[in-house]
């Protein structure tokens, strides 16, 4: 999949699940603050990404990604594999 298409799809599922306005998701925005994630909702983000993009990831790995830009890279690398 093209990275641009992937970014679009990632944003769509995050907007839908976390009920935020699309405009607030920018590459440099802080993920936890923007989506209002605490340790519990982080679990939901992991589950969402795993089931939407068919990748297996660890909560600890995702928790370390500060921005959406880093998240896109992270998922893109794993899909490529």
């Amino acid at each position, binding site marked *: 999949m093209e990275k641009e298409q992937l970014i679009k799809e990632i944003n769509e599922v995050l907007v839908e699940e976390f009920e935020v306005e699309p405009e607030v998701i920018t590459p440099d925005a802080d993920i936890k603050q923007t989506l*209002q994630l605490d340790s519990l909702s982080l*679990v*939901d983000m992991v*589950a969402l990404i*795993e089931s939407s993009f068919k990748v297996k990831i660890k909560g600890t790995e995702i928790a370390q990604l500060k921005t959406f830009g880093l998240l896109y890279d992270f998922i893109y690398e794993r899909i490529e594999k």
Partner: protein
Amino acid sequence: MKRVVITGMGIYSCLGNGLDAVKESLYNGKSGIVFDPERKEMGFRSALTAKLDVPDLKKELSRNQRVYMPEQAKYAYVATAEALRNSNLDIDFLETQEVGLLYGNDSSAEAVMNSIDTMREKKDTTLIGSGGIFQSMNSTVTMNLACIFKLKGMNLTVSGACASGSHAIGLGTLLIRNGLQDIVVCGGAQEVNPYAVGSFDGISAFSTRESDPTKASRPFDRDRDGLVPGGGAATVIIESYESAIRRGAPILAEVCGYGFSSNGDHISVPNVDGPSRSLRMAIKDANIDIREIGYVNAHATSTPVGDRNEAKAIDNVFGDYKPEITSTKAMTGHEMWMAGASEVIYSMLMMKNDFIAPNINFENPDEDSAKLNIPAKRIIKHFDTFLSNSFGFGGTNSTLVIKNL
């Protein structure tokens, strides 16, 4: 011992969303029962149920608040928000004062099913979602209400089957009388979905009068053939008299008697002795002459045996004094874990508006109900004291006596 008064009420019922809508339905003897074809497809013996829509709380609560709430917690939220408003209790007060919470709930079947289905299907527990565990527990309602409304006092779910909501109010009353809490948010909530009641349908407890849903729930009637499941949530805020006066709260009524007992008998079939003891204990606790009771809201669920034994118990206790007795379950079906609390509200609405709602579908008495004074049509009557019964599986009994103020 402190006096305990009711300072707020709220309800989400098949009779309506909110006190005003419910009062209208009661006054007009409206039924909330429908035929749900989905249940037939699922293999139910009876597809009858109360009709209730799950409220959409997106505008009122954030995603992070809603994710832990199963259906019945949403009903409880709406009912509690109304009660707190009516009681003039705002979030600033709740955050700084110690207000307790005792709410009846005894299942969370659909949430449990969803979590386990995901686990079995995906063989991966992380896919269940963070809401799973919190939605699945019996204490889901009190967990959610305590966090959303920032309640800082007692925080406990009362599980006593169909007597849960009544026991919640009774136990809250004991806390306040003994000076352990000034204010307690009490109530009962009940999920309304096929998964919660499939096993109940499976023991042939439900009426199969599917051709005429609004006539199926007929407590005390000779031709009753079983109960109809229902649900929603009802909140009753109780408070010490001093606290109510101090903060200028509306004082609606006094909880003057709480009686309880256990049958120590069959797990589902009630006897006469247990309920009789609960009634007598409540009346004694209220310290009133039985003739002051102007209305009895019976537990009567429209089962052949249950209604018969309650009629006998009431006849034993009341003797030749015959106040009006009805079961509002004729209109609502059996609201189960919600019932004890909702029936206090239905009775309060009648008491405050000088009427007794009809025991609809009471067309012919049986040998036992013939001894009672059961109005099949609405009665216009002023009364100042009522008694409400709730009896549950396992033989748990609860009775409340409430006086107008």
